[in-house]
């Protein structure tokens, strides 16, 4: 089993069982890698299906205040990209849900896209999401991802016209990251009504799993997506729990809160369709 197929197999298994995939997002290195590794273990125990690991970046234009603040905390503590790789390398990733790195292109480019991807694959990442590398610029990165055995996940936004969406789908692997709202990451009470239509249309265009992210935080939002999506991604609602550490909360308490939020979403996503 190659790393790159782990993502597809995860989605395939869930589909057979009539379940949605749940993919929580956590920031690497907030407040340190030890906590990040504990969070990964906690999430795995709670039964999440994939884990998105955000590489802190100094200028994340797609991110709202919660994830920005988390990135800033990690960077203020002098987190380096290599600390993330070294930390993940200590995990038995084959026994964990597939790890998907969320990495700004600035960071990949600086190390060299090939070298970055080789190292990511080596330490056990199954795929990468590069939020600021649009499909038009992604052909070289897609080839290098393939060479290194990583899935390169592509994003589709509510503002993406249909002809663009088809081009993006042709370049995608693993799953398609469907951005639910035109905007930045962060908890929203409601998902836009057009989202279901777009997902239904995308469903006809591709066999790739459709995972929906941005703005999702609650089990009842999962219900809205159950028949049109294959997975949901939850970031800010998870990362927000880390704020408590700044206010004197203990790591155990944060782990248990994250576990609770994740547990609720696992139950919601794994409920049969």
């Amino acid at each position, binding site marked *: 089993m190659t790393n790159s197929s782990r993502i597809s197999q995860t989605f395939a298994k869930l589909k057979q069982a009539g379940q949605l995939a749940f993919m929580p997002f956590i920031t690497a290195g907030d407040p340190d890698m030890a906590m990040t590794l504990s969070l990964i273990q906690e999430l795995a125990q709670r039964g999440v299906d994939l884990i998105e690991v955000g590489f802190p*970046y*100094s*200028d*994340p*234009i*797609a*991110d*709202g205040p919660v994830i*920005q603040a988390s990135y*800033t905390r990690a*960077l203020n503590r002098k987190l*380096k*990209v290599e600390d993330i790789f070294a930390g993940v390398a200590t995990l038995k990733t084959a026994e964990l849900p597939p790890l998907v790195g969320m990495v*700004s*292109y*600035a*960071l*990949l*480019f*600086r*190390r060299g*896209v090939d070298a970055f991807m080789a190292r990511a694959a080596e330490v056990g990442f199954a795929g990468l999401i590069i*939020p*600021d*590398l*649009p*499909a*038009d*610029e992604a052909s*070289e990165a897609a080839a290098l991802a393939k060479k290194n055995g990583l899935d390169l996940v*592509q*994003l*589709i*936004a*509510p*503002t*993406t*016209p249909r002809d*663009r969406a088809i081009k*993006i789908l042709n370049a995608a692997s693993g799953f398609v990251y469907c*951005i639910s*709202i*035109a*905007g*930045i990451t962060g908890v929203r009470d409601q998902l836009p009504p057009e989202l279901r239509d777009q997902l239904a249309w995308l469903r006809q265009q591709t066999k790739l799993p459709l995972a929906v992210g941005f703005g999702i935080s609650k089990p009842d939002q999962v219900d809205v997506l159950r028949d049109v999506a294959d997975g949901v991604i939850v970031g800010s609602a998870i990362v927000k729990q880390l704020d408590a550490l700044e206010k004197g909360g203990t790591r155990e308490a944060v782990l248990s809160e994250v576990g609770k939020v994740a547990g609720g979403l696992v139950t919601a996503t794994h409920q049969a369709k």
Partner: protein
Amino acid sequence: MSTTTTTGAATSQVPDDLGRFGEFGRRFVPETLMHALEELTAEYARATQDPAFQKELDGLLSTFVGRPNPLYFAERLTQYCGGARIYLKREDLNHTGAHKINNTMGQVLLTRRMGKKRVIAETGAGQHGVATATACARFGLDCVVYMGEEDVRRQKLNVFNMRMMGAEVRPVTSGSRTLRDAINEAMRDWMGSVQNTHYIIGSVVGPHPFPMMVRDFQSVIGREARRQCQEIVGRLPDEVIACVGGGSNSAGMFYPFVDDKTVRLTGVEAGGRGPQPGDHASTLTHGVKGVLHGSYSYVLQDVDGQTADVHSISAGLDYPGVGPEHSYWKDSGRVDYVSITDQEALDAFQTMAKLEGILPALESSHAIAHTLKAAKRRSPQEVIVVCLSGRGDKDVYEVARLLGRDLG
């Protein structure tokens, strides 16, 4: 990243359809913004083919902005240096006091063509914010300006002016609280508002088509200066000098001269307190190739690709990136880039005030400071044209503070 090289002569025939200046430029933004950038590119292409658009813009530049502004012989500055004759391109005489308005008038007309009713902008020194607020007031558009908290402090006067013209100024408290963070916040706003909002970027930075479009709107500076120099001196200048923050006044000044191989072009970056990382904003002198704010260019960043902290006395030059066309000009050798320190700029500010009766913006003072050095090395037969990108009124509080004077 493709392997196109930019060595060899630079040409003015850039960028290509993908927004590439040699290898630099392009688009590195979230998918959410891609469609808007494609639409903007198409609308801009249509506008440039439309004589009515150009006519309206020219009319505004003439009757509202006050163009053409003069190319002025700085007689006493020239005497003081005892070398080349120094001519000032007087962008400081534009309405709102800087070159920024050349771009905002063009982009506001585009905003109207696209039927968008809301405009956002970032600002460092506040000059671009004021120029945007002005253009929006003139055309009745909603205007929100993002400005780093540190710059809100340094540039109070401009904050007041923007608010008087009905713009909402939103202080930005993330990161270094300067221009770079203001751009991040404006981009984040745009992620959620792109369907009804146009983002008027204030310099030749950001994803395609901004670097090209802003350069084109600012090129009126160089076109006028080139013609005026021929009229006044009877030939092209020997050297053209301008300061480089994001690079818009310099790009607009240089672009019409790029194919004039006898004209030396020199960009002046902020040398801050010195060459140590974090003490300056000399992106082209000390930076590496990388990605920031949606485009591939030189950037000041650490070994991981995290953007570095920068410093300059001048809010408008306090930026860790630079427009991709400048990177192309640097690598092709067409433009030389040098640094001027905070102290040299402050000295030049005072020299200009005493000798010419002109208070230059602190940004422009960097260009003046280098001009003083360059003129001394040249003969009186030679001619230097320098872009006086803006006036210094906005800076008097900061200058007074730095000189230990009290404004009361």
